[in-house]
């Protein structure tokens, strides 16, 4: 089974702190994603990466950065946490939609989520 592991289920941080959210997947997926989930807003894409050292901005990248030094690991960084970044953060991974001549489903496999509270 695919496993996507997020380092922390619950975090409480103070305004201005630097926050690292780590995500590791064990299925050799090329694509990795960071979403935040807020009531009534669904899942909003922050950043995604389709290869090591590659990253693309999603719909709400402001206030966030990411790092992908190894294929299995994708980190989300909040340089200076603010109260409006209190949210559930979900990491996901997938094969690319077209890979090696085969069309994969591209279905996302999600981690359990990290609930961040910024005070």
């Amino acid at each position: 089974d695919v496993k996507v592991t997020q380092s922390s289920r619950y975090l409480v941080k103070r305004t201005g702190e630097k926050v690292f959210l780590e995500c590791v997947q064990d299925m050799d997926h090329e694509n990795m994603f960071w979403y935040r989930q807020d009531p009534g807003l669904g899942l909003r894409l922050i950043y995604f990466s389709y290869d090591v050292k590659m990253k693309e901005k999603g719909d709400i990248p402001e206030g966030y950065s990411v790092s992908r030094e190894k294929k299995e690991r994708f980190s989300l960084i909040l340089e200076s946490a603010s109260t409006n970044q209190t949210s559930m953060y979900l990491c996901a991974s997938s094969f690319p939609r077209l890979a090696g001549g085969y069309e994969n489903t591209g279905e996302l496999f999600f981690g359990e989520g990290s609930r961040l509270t910024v005070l």
Partner: protein
Amino acid sequence: GQQVMQIPQYQHVQEGEDFTTYCNSSTTLSNIQWYKQRPGGHPVFLIQLVKSGEVKKQKRLTFQFGEAKKNSSLHITATQTTDVGTYFCAGLWGAQKLVFGQGTRLTINP
């Protein structure tokens, strides 16, 4: 940017009643995926629709993709308490980037 609108936001039904959630995009999608998130859990992939007019069934769940590939629906027949959760559609434009709808939260009175 690309957006997927999903309605309704909430739906409460009696057990045994049917349930439908709808997704709409203003532009043509490459495909659409559906996910279910149980309370306290993470989204889990249900299905992907790719072809215009496609209809797929999984037991009591029926998924449809519109002829213009701009809308989709999920219909659950005779709901059961195990169907409780939030259902998300996610539209794909191009190759990699999925955009999720706001989700429909289904609650069921047993």
